[in-house]
């Protein structure tokens, strides 16, 4: 049996010890957290049964730690030790001190909680964790101003720097990421892409609009809209290039395809420009005058309205029937009847706009047609050229023929003496009978009249085939290649070259709408046919 005086030591607010005694007895004194323990230490750091005080066979008292329970005796970890006065035993947060023995008790133990739990250890974590967003220390102002500062630095200050120095601008323009790239509202158009991020190429002065001089510095060949300087200056003085040519809209959009700007003047051109001969134009489909055809009138070019039929006559100087050449059964040729197509004579140029000029050799004499044959007294071919050139060729041809064989000289007129004179005589006779005949050979295509010149007594009317019927408009034949020529040009029944078979505006309107899209038609603005910088007279 062990009799133990247990002294519970606590501390008052001043830190002075307050003792409370109790006596416990038993053969074994259990120390632990459990309710069955006689030394009841209420702390979770103490095991349910932490240690026991027992008496050994020789009567001495010793403390014996339970399995997995730690004892710290006089500062050293131990499992078991005899209890001697002054011994200091730590069990969890408690310190047990063996007090000197006194009468009536086998053992006197003082117990004190030396490591009390603080709030955190007690597990009141939930009360210390932030429970509001404000408690997290987040600051709307700090975040906002930080973001704003970043944006102002990256997107306001840095893009301005290149404008301070040309060299710096050039250097940064070559970088993979440019400083002022973030200011570009969109990709540059076409050739302007070469400038890249070197904004100062066009934007030469800060806070000032791009001037026309910047544009014309490169685009030197660009014509003005009006040929009359005074009118051009008056009309377009306040108009800047960039009002129509808006860049940073992608590779396609630099030229203004909108007709509204054109119509703003041409819709009331008669009122706006006193003395203008132009008709008001509002829309291709509904407000456009009939086309004008440009013709050569002897010495000058004249423009004839297409509805003025009496004046609409071509004076090309040629006699030509499209009906004969485009006959369905074919046209007679050295290879027999040959069916011809428009493209056999009208060869589209690479530009796709105009046709290559027609020549006698490439056009009329293709497939051995229209050969200028000489039959009497010798067979040969005359060249196509001026009257004098033809006559000279004949003279040389007969002279050579007379020299070839003495027998040939029998063809000479007895009154004509000498080979040269004979050749000239033969040339004159044969030119008159085989070449310069009305409606035959040369006369089949050309108007032939007499000339006062003794050497060349024939005069061919000058040939002026109209190549551009509407020089103020651009028509892309290449874009219309899906159509047949005769869909627009009514040439199948044309017997004379005086016929003009240019399509009227009504024909174009069958497929082309005006400024606004229409069902089954192609929207066509002013610039579909007209060029602003063409310099209209």
């Amino acid at each position: 049996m062990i009799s133990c005086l247990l002294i519970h030591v606590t501390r008052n607010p001043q830190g002075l010890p307050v003792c409370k005694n109790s006596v416990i007895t038993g053969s074994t004194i259990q120390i632990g957290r459990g309710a069955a323990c006689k030394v009841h230490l209420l702390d979770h750091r103490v095991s349910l049964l932490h240690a026991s005080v027992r008496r050994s066979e020789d009567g001495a008292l010793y403390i014996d730690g339970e399995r997995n329970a730690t004892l710290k005796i006089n500062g050293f970890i131990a499992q078991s030790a005899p209890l001697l006065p002054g011994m200091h035993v730590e069990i969890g947060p408690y310190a047990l001190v063996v007090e000197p023995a006194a009468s009536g008790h086998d053992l006197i133990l003082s117990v004190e909680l030396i490591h009390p739990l603080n709030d955190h250890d007690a597990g009141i974590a939930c009360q210390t964790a932030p429970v509001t967003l404000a408690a997290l220390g987040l600051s709307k102002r700090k975040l906002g101003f930080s973001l704003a500062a970043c944006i102002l630095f990256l997107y306001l200050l840095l893009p301005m720097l290149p404008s301070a120095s040309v060299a710096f601008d050039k250097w940064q323009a070559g970088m993979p990421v440019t400083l002022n790239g973030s200011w570009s509202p969109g990709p540059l158009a076409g050739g302007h892409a070469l400038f890249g991020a070197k904004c100062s190429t066009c934007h030469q002065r800060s806070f000032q609009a791009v001037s026309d001089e910047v544009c014309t510095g490169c685009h030197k060949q660009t014509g003005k809209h009006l040929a009359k300087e005074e009118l051009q200056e008056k009309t377009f003085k306040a108009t800047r290039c960039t009002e129509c040519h808006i860049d940073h809209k992608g590779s396609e959009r630099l030229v203004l395809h909108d007709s509204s700007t054109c119509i703003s003047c041409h819709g009331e051109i008669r009122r706006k420009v006193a003395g203008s001969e132009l008709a008001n134009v509002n829309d291709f489909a509904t407000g456009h005058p009939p086309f004008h055809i440009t013709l050569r009138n002897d010495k000058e070019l004249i423009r004839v309205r297409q509805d003025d039929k009496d004046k609409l006559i071509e004076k090309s100087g040629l006699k030509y029937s499209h009906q004969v050449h485009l006959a369905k059964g074919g046209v007679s040729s050295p290879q027999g009847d040959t069916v011809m197509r428009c493209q056999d004579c009208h060869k589209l140029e690479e530009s796709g706009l105009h046709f290559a000029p027609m020549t006698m050799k490439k056009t009329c004499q293709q497939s051995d047609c229209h050969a200028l044959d000489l039959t009497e007294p010798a067979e040969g071919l005359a060249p196509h050229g001026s009257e004098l050139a033809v006559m000279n060729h004949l003279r040389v041809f007969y002279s050579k023929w007379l020299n070839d064989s003495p027998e040939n000289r029998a063809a000479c007129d007895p009154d004509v003496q000498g080979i040269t004179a004979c050749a000239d005589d033969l040339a004159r006779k044969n030119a008159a009978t085989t070449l310069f005949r009305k409606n035959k050979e040369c006369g089949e295509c050309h108007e032939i009249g007499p000339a006062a010149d003794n050497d060349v007594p024939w005069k061919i009317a000058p040939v002026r085939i109209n190549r551009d019927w509407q020089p103020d408009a651009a028509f892309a034949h290449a874009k219309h290649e899906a159509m047949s020529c005769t869909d627009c040009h009514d040439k199948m029944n044309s017997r004379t070259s005086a016929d003009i078979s240019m399509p009227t505006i009504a024909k174009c309107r069958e497929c082309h709408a005006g400024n606004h899209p229409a069902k089954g038609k192609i929207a066509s603005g002013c610039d579909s046919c007209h060029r602003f910088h063409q310099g209209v007279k």
Partner: protein
Amino acid sequence: MNMMQGATLLKYKNYRYLKATSLLMLLAITAYALIRPAGGESYGGTWLGYLLGIISTLIMFFLMWYGITKRRITGSPERRKLRTRVARSTEMADQARLERRKTRKKTRVLSGAMLQEWLSAHVYLGASLIVLVSLHTGFHFGLNVHTLAYVLMLLVISSGFYGLNVYLNYPRLITLNMTEDTLDNLLLKIAELDELAGTRALGLPDEVNTLIMKARRETRIGGTLFQQLSGDQKDCPTRIAVQQMLHLGAKYNQDDQPKIMRDLYSALLRKEKLVLRARTEIMLKARLECWLYLHAPLGIALLAALAAHIVSIFFYW
């Protein structure tokens, strides 16, 4: 703000601002549809684009002015707390206090009415910017400062819509969750239950004691931003403790332990419910306030982007 106040906000003076902004949007859309700019392509550089840009900028300044006005009238949350603390600690004469209260109440009523009108205009005008600014852009976007300003504006407006939604719905949910309690009350009750459970568990085997201690130590209420917003704790120790206690109850069914285990289980169950309510309260309040941590800073950032946008346009005119 409760549901009724929210409804008043939207219906303020018979939808005055809804009508005004609808008219504004209708005019803008009509102009955009009918007016064909040179080149046939709308963008910020046409006269209509400039006009829409100027109107939108003025509206943005007006909307931001609301934030400044609100802070001036109500003060920042920190200042409000400070005022309350000072008022509590200061001994004021009853009469003087009464007089001051009357004056403050009058000012607050006036300011409140004014703020409500401002807020109603703020909501509708803010929403109208989506239409006005989109038309201003002509629907041209790219990786540049101009689109950055547009995106920031959309983010500010989106956060504003979220804020409107939570202000209309969350106050009711908070009331339903908390009834008469406050968060401090709940935390105290939880602490009491922890204390009780801890004491009870001391006499029980280590397995139970450790479980209870873990539930006490590691159960977290509130915490980081995402923890507050989620209103949950992954593998919540209290929830696990409740589940484990069912098994442990059967295991340690001896002596007088069944009663202690029952008490412990009951305490844990009560704690779990209180923890859930506390977390829900924190979650709802966090969600009620979190949008402002985007709305206000992004608004300031938008102002900077707007400045960069406008300067860039005229710098490289």
